[in-house]
């Protein structure tokens, strides 16, 4: 990622179907899309855009397994090593009684871990001021953005033509 300011040339579409067609065309024409911004998750966009599958669920499994082991091993340690007590004539290591808490901590660890990972990898946190290309992107516009640092005028014309022909309702540049 470049730390310098980015010149961004972007176009807004009124409909997600137009967006999908436009992204497909941009890909066919080997245009280097910086990012696509939408007001809601547009299904079918990821494969066209070439986004790889998220690995968040794998992380979730690891966090969950950590929770399982933490809970189960901790209770085992407490009741067999640290302070063994007999409750209701049951064995010290009464596994069925450990199941509820083991399950709850599995879920708790998985949920907290995944949510924290999600915000971390997305770079989202309270106080983060991400540049917003257009106020309508979170409302009803679908945006394709190109980074145009050092683009020649013919390359810019290419992009303009692309937006015009794919039916973008608004095109603009912004330095972010």
């Amino acid at each position: 990622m470049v730390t310098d300011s980015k010149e961004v040339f972007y176009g807004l579409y009124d409909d997600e179907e137009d967006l999908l067609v436009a992204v497909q065309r941009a890909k066919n024409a080997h245009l280097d899309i910086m990012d696509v911004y939408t007001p809601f998750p547009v299904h079918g966009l990821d494969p066209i855009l070439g986004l790889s599958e998220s690995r968040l669920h794998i992380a979730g499994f690891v966090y969950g397994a950590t929770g399982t082991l933490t809970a189960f091993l901790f209770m085992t340690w407490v009741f067999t090593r640290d302070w063994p007590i007999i409750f209701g004539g049951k064995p010290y290591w009464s596994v069925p009684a450990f199941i509820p808490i083991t399950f709850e901590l599995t879920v708790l660890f998985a949920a907290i871990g995944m949510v924290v990972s999600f915000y971390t990898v997305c770079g989202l946190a309270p106080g983060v001021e991400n540049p917003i290309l257009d106020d309508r992107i979170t409302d009803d516009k679908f945006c394709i953005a190109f980074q145009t640092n050092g683009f020649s005028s013919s390359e810019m014309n290419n992009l303009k033509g692309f937006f015009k022909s794919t039916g973008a309702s608004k095109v603009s540049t912004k330095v972010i």
Partner: protein
Amino acid sequence: MSAVVSSIRNPLVTGNKSYHDITEDLCAPTEKAPGLQWVIGFILAITLFSFGAFCIIWTIWMGIGSWNLNRTINWGWDITNFVWWIGIGHAGTLISAILLLFRQKWRTGVNRAAEAMTIFAVMCAGLFPLIHMGRLWLAFFIFPYPNTRGPLWVNFNSPLLWDVFAISTYFTVSLLFWYTGLVPDFATVRDRASGVRKKIYNTLSFGWTGSAKHWQRWEYLSLVLAGIATPLVLSVHTIVSFDFATSVIPGWHTTIFPPYFVAGAIFSGFAMVLTLMLVARKVLNLKDYITVEHIESMNKIILLTGSIVGVAYLTELFVAWYSVYPYEQFAFFNRALGPYYWSYWGMMICNVITPQLFWSKKMRTSVFWTFFLSIIINVGMWFERFVIIATTLARDYIPSSWSYYVPTWVEIGIFIGTIGLFFVLFLIFTRVAPVVAIAEIKSILKSSGDQYVGKDAKHHSHPQPASAYDDSNGFLQYWDGNDSSHDSITILKSVSGEATSVVAEPTVLKASLKDDLKKVEGIGPKIEGLLNAAGINTFVDLANASVESIQGILNAAGSRYSTHNPGTWGRQAQMAADGKWDELKAWQDILDGGKE
């Protein structure tokens, strides 16, 4: 891209809304000054809450003796209210998690408010065990932390401790789930706001941008959270029921308690969702987003879970008789005919008879009756918990200890206070956050908006992207030697051997660029994307591809796709490429989802 929805489905978003209309409608309550109804409701709720807070302080100051609990009756209104509130909380997670896994689109209209309700209800519930401890300032003793008393650990074998873990996990996970859903909507509010409001909502939205990769991760997160919240919600009331079921007290010591409690929880939770949403729908003007279809769907769940609860009540009676265990039998005689008979019959009428009225479509779709019956069900479910707790404890094994329990004003006051707290929080929520999930409503608009589905539909439910065919803007002219389709045009021209007329050119362009492969029955937007990615863009491409190679593409995309059978796609595509639309249509009518 719109998902496949049967045309006989009723629309879930009415009023011919555009995306922008949805934003306007759903952001409006957070942007306007509150109306008179809200102010009155808020003052009332604050008043009730203040009285409850006073009663809690009274309890802590005077001691737990200010409640009418005694030697035998050690649980009274406190635990009744605790179980009642926890039960109400269950509908939120059911709607947002289980219905997400079942792909029920109607959940999008009510999930946000129901999840908020869950969080507030669990907060109210958690209050009761805490103050019942008597010494509230020692509440942290319930957590296993290293301490100077040994360290002496908590009893991990006790259902009361399981409760601590279950409820704190439930609260945390619900909060995370709810907030993650809210983040994109806070961004929507932010981008409409200015000044300080913009700053506040930017903080709340964590700087959300709507980037495609973020949305992808967001959907994964929602799906996996839903997956783990589903067993969680079932575990919570199961564990609450263990508080009773693992004891050896007649009437409590039954294996039916976990499923019966969970069904009852969902039953009461949906009743509360309906009570709240029918008011919110009117006051916040959400009739286009919470339609009669939503109300009917929820009433069907009430009918199902209410019937499960009814069967459970009868099963308890049967098992008491069948057990030939006199103490168990006495417990149930005592419930129906003993000193608390009124609560038992209140419970039976409210919970067993009321939901059966929803077999009638007229009742299910009537806003008035739904509202009325939802309140009756809430009352009935409160009675149920009271019956289980008070009647059982009032008649234990030693007749000399028998007594009759009546709550003091302090206990009643705390209950009223939690109702106040619940509504204070809910009313603030309606002003701060969009009550209906904006982004999720938008994502179902193309499949469930009334302009796309239902009797007034104007568009086909799969609107064709106009620009896919229309290349009259001359897009391709910009790509000199840069675009493979341009080459194919040149080839086609040279093959035809004569100067192609200008009129014919768009046809050639269209054929060479991209066809709508979704016209082929069995191919949806996702599969179309896969085929495009593999270089199959037109009907001709598809017709020329072998069945094996298409199956290979599907298999490579994972098990969700490999089950599709592309046997007929090539032949369908050939018909489409030849322009034999009528023939194709006739054949598709015979095909079952694209399969022969």
